[in-house]
């Protein structure tokens, strides 16, 4: 039934290739694709020709070098290697790789802002962020536009570097985004990645983590808000192959509206050599209305028992009528009460992204979609009006 599914003992994909034709077009029955509405992928599987060029811009900051690198130069680097047809198309269809490099022992104070605007049509882009050893940087990536997009973002965090990455998908209602974020950690590197999915008709966002040396520490945060029939699919694969690593995965989603569908698949593999690791993954979903569906599948596979901690959890709950009654009994109208509950639900994620101003802009977008444009008290606890 699932011909391309990897055997249970090894999560490595059966086919790794830069050639799209090395991969079959999925039928939808494969384990990897069974949740995805293939007809809404904008022809990404069938018509692998770029008809547009995404506008990629990177803010100019001291200590950050931006360059375009030919694909061939980075091909052969296993961490970029496509694992399915669309990621292969997104590689071969991109004109080049936008390389954002932070030199070793550099601290970049301001966040690097990267915008990827996807115009009408089909477009591809590849981005690589290389964080030098002992460097500190934060990067905010924002997807906008109306097009069908597939791409890859690779984050290479060298030894003892610290990278804070936030990826916001805020495309128009017609857009498609199938992307893969791959994080590679050197010795004692610390990476925090937040993926925030708000827009587009269909989003399929894979995040994978690779440890090349002991002591890597990754925190994957995810937030998605889906309504009006959107499909938001998030897949996580953390591959603990090295000792003394740490991974913490927290994704939270809120969804409402007929036909709205969210999917979260969280795979954590702890290989036999990865002794002394500590991993925890959790997905929580808040279903705000009838007709919306959340699928949530955590998988934790341990090949060694010598771990500090290993756990996973998943919970999908309905919007609580009693919470609504309590808030409304205090004079707060229905729309604002829903905003408060959703803001409260997301508060822990948004409080931890590490990107200044991000929480506020994300919540304002969600507020507006819940019908509230003017919120008096900021429930995230940012009392910016206090000047005493």
């Amino acid at each position, binding site marked *: 039934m699932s011909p391309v599914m990897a055997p249970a003992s090894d999560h490595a994909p059966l086919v790794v290739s830069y050639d799209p034709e090395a991969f079959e077009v999925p039928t939808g029955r494969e384990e990897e694709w069974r949740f995805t509405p293939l007809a809404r992928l904008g022809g990404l599987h069938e018509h692998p020709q770029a008809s547009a060029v995404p506008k990629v811009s990177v803010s100019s900051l001291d200590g950050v070098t931006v360059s375009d690198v030919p694909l061939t130069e980075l091909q052969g680097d296993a961490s970029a290697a496509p694992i399915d047809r669309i990621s292969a198309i997104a590689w071969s269809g991109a004109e080049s790789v936008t390389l954002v490099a932070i030199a070793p022992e550099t601290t970049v104070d301001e966040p690097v802002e990267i915008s990827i605007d996807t115009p009408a049509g089909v477009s591809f882009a590849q981005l690589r962020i290389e964080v030098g050893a002992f460097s500190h940087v934060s990067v905010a990536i924002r997807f906008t536009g109306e097009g069908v997009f597939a791409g890859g973002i690779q984050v290479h965090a060298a030894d003892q570097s610290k990278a804070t990455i936030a990826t916001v998908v805020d495309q128009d209602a017609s857009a498609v985004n199938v992307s893969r974020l791959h994080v590679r950690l050197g010795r004692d590197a610390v990476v925090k990645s937040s993926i925030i999915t708000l827009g587009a008709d269909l989003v399929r966002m894979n995040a994978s983590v690779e440890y090349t040396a002991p002591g890597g520490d990754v925190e994957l945060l995810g937030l998605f808000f889906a309504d009006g029939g959107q499909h938001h699919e998030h897949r996580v694969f953390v591959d603990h192959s090295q000792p003394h690593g740490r991974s913490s995965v927290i994704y939270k989603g809120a969804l409402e509206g007929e036909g709205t569908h969210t999917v979260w698949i969280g795979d954590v593999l702890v290989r036999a050599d990865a002794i002394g690791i500590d991993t925890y993954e959790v997905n929580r979903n808040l279903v705000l209305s009838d007709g919306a569906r959340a699928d949530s599948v955590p998988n934790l596979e341990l090949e060694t028992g010598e771990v500090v901690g290993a756990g996973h959890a998943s919970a999908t709950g309905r919007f609580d009528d009693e919470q609504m*009654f309590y808030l409304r009994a205090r*004079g707060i109208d229905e729309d604002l009460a829903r905003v408060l509950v959703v803001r409260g639900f997301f508060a822990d994620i948004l409080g931890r992204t590490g990107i200044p101003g991000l929480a506020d802009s994300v919540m304002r977008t969600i507020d507006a979609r819940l019908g509230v444009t003017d919120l008096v008290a900021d429930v995230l606890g940012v009392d910016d009006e206090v000047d005493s």
Partner: protein
Amino acid sequence: MSTLEIVDLHASVETDTGEQPILRGVDLTISQGQTHAVMGPNGSGKSTLAYVIAGHPKYQVTQGSITLDGADVLEMSVDERARAGLFLAMQYPVEIPGVSVSNFLRTSATAVRGEAPKLRLWLKEMKEAMAALSIDPSFAERSVNEGFSGGEKKRHEILQLELLKPKIAILDETDSGLDVDALRVVSEGVNRYRESGQTGTLLITHYTRILRYIHPDFVHVFVDGRIVESGGPELATTLEDEGYEKFIAAVRASVAS
């Protein structure tokens, strides 16, 4: 002067076995400045009365009316009722994870008052109200009701009472689960607000204990979905000495006959 008038109120709840009547003809008029205690045994429907006044969607009103200064309360949504001046201090306050007490209170005060209170004045007002109820300032940053002890939940309800300044306050078993010290603090808060003369108070309770701290003007005995006897404070003393048995027996006798 504000008046809440309840006339021949019938209400029921939908159950697996069909519609179950709970309130069976409640008549009660509460005016500003008055305190009414409604006392009854478990399952008599006295808490349902509180929830029906506040507009909980679980209950359907099948007959009768509730008006506040002539305005039809039953036509109002839950939040409209609160903005019109009704307040329900709940027996089981609900947890709202991630929403801080401070922001909840300010959002609520803004909704009820119709405009956002000036921040500095608001912070002062909130701090003073919290201090009066012996609530630690750190409380403001905690999530609403999350991890609160029973006493903290009830003090938080009375804090809202004092900040929202309703015309009619309904206290649903505010005394339940409180030790004597907490009961005293909570009662003092209620009395402070009562003394302002702005409110009519409906105190719903199973026990007479809270009536030693909050003195009612009127006491009503609630059995089987309606008021079966009304009197002054002395009726509470009778209940304390004799319990509800006499009244329950009388209702059973009338049903049997």
